[in-house]
């Protein structure tokens, strides 16, 4: 038989991926396909690292910095930090990861992997490829009773820092929700420090449902906190609480200043980032309020500017 006829016999009934449907009488003996997670190892090879560095610094950072006005605070807390760390931030927008990647010191940015939701970023091949290449992402399964274990512990052991969003989903209204235990558990079992980061203003700049930042170069504050080391024998729940309070303090610092935030925290009040207990429009109203802008004061008060 000619080659074309052979190919046609072979591919008859099979789709473009070579798969065919199970015949009706064989459905009882179908073996469920094993759930494989998307292989991301290739993105951590030297070639991919170089490409990614170029994409992040050249493309991602320049676009993010041009569409918004980010202000980075607290990088001096990271001065003495060596080795892998888990960067933990609140999550309200797709801008969060690019902003952290662009602001974190170079020695971390080169060895940083981002945890991305498997059901959102890794459902279609092309989206998985792009996310893995540009962000060095690895899949984390959010739902389901039979979740696959993520790569996070392995990466930490190999010296990669991680960027995780323990809220596990972007905020619906811009305010912070409770942190899941995954990140805290990692830090406690692997004895790596957690660096809390508070991102303010990202919800206003690019909330859920938008694919591009709001025009007008909104101000965004990226505030890094002091790394938290898990104490000997500390359990994940306790560490998680510490971590939540650290991020809440950094959040509050934007509104009421550093010392006031510390004082509030001492009274164990973590209410501020949860937002006002009011109707939805008011929560959204407050969440999208532009951040206080230190523009230069008019020289002559009262003069028109």
């Amino acid at each position, binding site marked *: 038989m000619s080659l074309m006829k052979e190919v046609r016999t072979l591919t008859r009934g099979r*789709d*473009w991926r070579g798969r065919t*449907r199970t015949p*009706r009488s064989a459905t009882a003996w179908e073996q469920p396909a094993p759930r494989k997670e998307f292989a991301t190892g290739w993105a951590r090879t030297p070639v991919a690292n170089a490409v990614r560095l170029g994409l992040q610094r050249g493309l991602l950072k320049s676009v993010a910095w041009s569409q918004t006005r980010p202000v980075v605070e607290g990088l001096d807390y990271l001065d003495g930090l060596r080795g892998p760390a888990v960067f933990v931030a609140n999550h309200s927008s797709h801008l969060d990861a690019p902003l952290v990647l662009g602001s974190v010191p170079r020695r971390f940015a080169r060895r940083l992997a981002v945890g991305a939701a498997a*059901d959102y970023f890794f*459902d*279609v091949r092309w989206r998985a490829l792009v996310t893995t290449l540009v962000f060095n992402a690895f899949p984390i399964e*959010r*739902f*389901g009773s039979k979740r696959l274990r993520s790569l996070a512990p392995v990466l930490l052991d190999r010296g990669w820092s991680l960027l995780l969003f323990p809220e596990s989903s972007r905020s619906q209204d811009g305010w912070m929700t409770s942190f899941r235990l995954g990140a805290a558990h990692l830090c406690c079992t692997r004895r790596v420090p957690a660096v809390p980061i508070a991102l303010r203003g990202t919800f206003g700049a690019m909330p859920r449902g938008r694919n591009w930042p709001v025009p007008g170069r909104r101000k965004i504050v990226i505030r890094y906190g002091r790394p938290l080391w898990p104490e000997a024998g500390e359990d994940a729940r306790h560490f998680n609480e510490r971590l939540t309070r650290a991020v809440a303090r950094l959040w509050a610092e934007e509104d009421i200043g550093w010392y006031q935030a510390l004082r509030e925290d001492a009274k164990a009040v973590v209410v501020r980032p949860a937002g006002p207990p009011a109707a939805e429009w008011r929560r959204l109203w407050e969440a999208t309020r532009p951040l206080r802008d230190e523009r230069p004061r008019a020289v002559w008060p009262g003069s028109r500017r």
Partner: protein
Amino acid sequence: MTAALEYRRAPARYLTARGATSTRLGSRLSGVLASNVAPLRLVSRGRQPAPDGGWARLRPLLAGICGSDLGMLTGRSSPYLFPVVSMPFVPGHEIVAETLDETPDLPKGSRVVVDPVLACAARGVPACRWCEVGQHSRCDRVTTGRIAAGLQTGFCADTGGGWSRTMVAHATQLHPVPDRLDNERAVLVEPLACAIHSVRRVDIPPGASVLIVGAGTVGLLTLLALRELTPAGATYLVAKYGHQRARARELGATEVFDPARAPRAMRRATGGSLEHPVFGAEYLLGGVDFAFECSGSSSGLDAALRLVRAGGTVLLSGMPSGTVDLTPVWFRQLRLVGSYASDGGGAPQDGQPSDFATAVSLAGDAPLSGYVDAVYPLTRWREAIGHAIGAGRLGTVKVAFDPTRD
């Protein structure tokens, strides 16, 4: 957290799909295009709170994939329908579900089929002239009211749809399912109700000859409705695939034809002369009294228009797509009738049972076993859509989702 297949607004994708499927190569790859280009995604939505008065949450047990859903995913549906849908919506309007809340007529946990039309009662507005006489398929107020615009559950942003783990429906939409109907038959009740409605749209005199073009779910159930509820005489069916022809014979069709053979066979059956235009398909001067177009394709409608006698009636059962030459309608003075969804039984004084009630009683006795022979979980939706698009070729009549399976 609950999973749902969500169709969101993405004009670029719609246009791409529409452009691609209109080419010859593209129409062969419809399955691939519908699965990958259509803006359909499996998302997790938050748990919805119990809705208030008159509404109930439902847990779909089986949700069918209809030709109109496929038309929307391949971009073949008309832009005419855009104002009466609100995005993002969860598709799925052929639903057999379990109620999760109490309603005035049904206890919690009862098995129901859903009449998807969102008419005045569901929208909480005063009844329009059609809803008053029980013809809610004609409701004028589908874009107003408490809930977003949407002609049916499965096209409305506020109600959810069958292709998800939870959705909501108004109490007036729910019809209890008797125990003797298993889920596979119950999911066929909604298309059967539409078929019953279509045969009630026209007055078929005893002994009239009827041609049904298309032998998918719509065509086969229309055949069933014709033979059970009308005094029609000879019923002919045009079916492309062998298994469809076998099922049609089982349901009592007089004769079944292959599409290529249809004009000649109709000439033999009904008399008249067969004309061959240089461009276009052959047609009969002569033909059947009624033709039901159940394939949803322009070639099917073309065939129906060309095989019906002068003064005859052509009924559009499936959502049409493409363009068709309407010269036969003018020249042979035909009546072109449309049929959409189902009704609640005409004016109260007529006493005729609603289409849905008739469908429930008919579904129990008819030879409908094996019609739903492919059931997929929501996670394998791309395979399900591909299977539904190639259903005829793959020997299946209806493909359904089982959202309770993982």
